[in-house]
């Protein structure tokens, strides 16, 4: 039996407490493959070396190694199409909104968050990834067909001219 494809979510928060909460909720209500990191640097390292595909990235804002906005900007460099979500305490809301505009974040979630909202934001983000991927595939297909058509056109011209 072929394994069902589970969308991959990468979650970074320096607080183990938050990771446990989100992990448990997602385990009980959803079917995602969740990768968790307490260190944004380690997450980037793995993105460069080990991790092949990610459908969505969630990051905490205030972390000692690097802040969530810089981390998500780094993620964008590596995977421009993957939706990025910032998880933030209320105090840095202004920063978060600036970041959404500057770094092009998909969404931000305030702590304490509502689990239903979290699930919806994740689901929509992943859907967006899939739509973008499909769109990309379709564009490639159209380009291929277009090229084939162009070649046929050339052949026809050769025959008649």
């Amino acid at each position, binding site marked *: 039996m072929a394994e069902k494809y589970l969308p991959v979510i990468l979650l970074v928060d320096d607080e183990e*407490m938050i990771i446990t909460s989100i992990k448990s*909720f997602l385990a009980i209500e959803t079917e995602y493959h969740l990768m968790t990191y307490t260190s944004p640097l380690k997450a980037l390292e793995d993105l460069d070396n080990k991790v092949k595909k990610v459908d969505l990235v969630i990051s905490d804002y205030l972390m000692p190694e690097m802040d969530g906005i810089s981390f998500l900007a780094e993620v964008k460099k590596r995977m421009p199409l993957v939706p990025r979500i910032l998880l933030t305490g209320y*105090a*840095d809301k202004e920063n978060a909104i600036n970041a959404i505009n500057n770094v092009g974040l998909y969404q931000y979630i*305030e702590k304490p968050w509502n689990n239903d909202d979290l699930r919806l934001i994740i689901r929509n983000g992943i859907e967006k990834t899939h739509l973008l991927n499909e769109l990309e595939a379709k564009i490639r297909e159209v380009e291929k067909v277009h090229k084939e058509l162009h070649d046929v056109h050339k052949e026809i011209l050769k025959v008649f001219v």
Partner: protein
Amino acid sequence: MKGIPNETSPQDDANAELIQSEKMASLGLLSAGLAHEINTPLGAIHSNNDTIARGIEKMKHLLAEKGDADNRRAALDLLGLLEEVSQNTSLATERLMNIVGSLKNFTRLDEAEFKKADIHEGLESTLTIVQHKLRERIAVKKNYGKIPLVECYPNRLNQVFMNLIVNAAQAIHDRGTITIETSLQGDSVRVSISDDGGGIPAENLPKVFDPGFTTKGVGVGTGLGLSICYQIIQQHQGKIEVESGNGKTTFTMDLPITHKKDERLRMQARQGAAIKKKR
């Protein structure tokens, strides 16, 4: 050390007001970080409770169905997960209680009077409150000596400790260490707080206790922090000194363990002025 006037004067009232406003300003600076500190465990608890409620619903369904081996395994998995979530809630609750306890300990609103207090306890609760400014960037080394209780206004001394620790943290740009030492020096307790954040330029050193002197730029510091620390230590008939060199800055305070009765009355009069102003 400068002398202390015998009675409260209009100047004292103005000073009391200044101390109060600086305290509010520093709490304001802290509140943004505190909100983050509180929202982390609060966020976990909020989510955990929801997850537990969902888990219970799922468990009900599992138990209502005919119990085959698969169902039994699913139920056991679910119970394991719920157990983890509930442990996580305990951790988060403990963290919140710690934060609130430290805030209470720090402000000591319930005991604004002059009393014998444990300096180490004050240092510890101050450290908990400024934790978000330190995080993993700054290591705190503590060399606590064996010291007796000190007669003081604990909430005011905590304000001094907070100011010095936040200053030290701001002086360290990348990674560094803050060292806190306490020791008994004759009839005084010595508390020193040092950082390896690069040091204070020699030309600024004589000015650091001057009201309004700041190098932090608009919006970061009020420029009153150290002058108020100086005043508070003076009120305790103590001494505060600063030394800087080789990339290291140390603030050293000597606090008398006990005070003569008439001194105590004068300090209470000053505290009275502060409370009067606050109302």
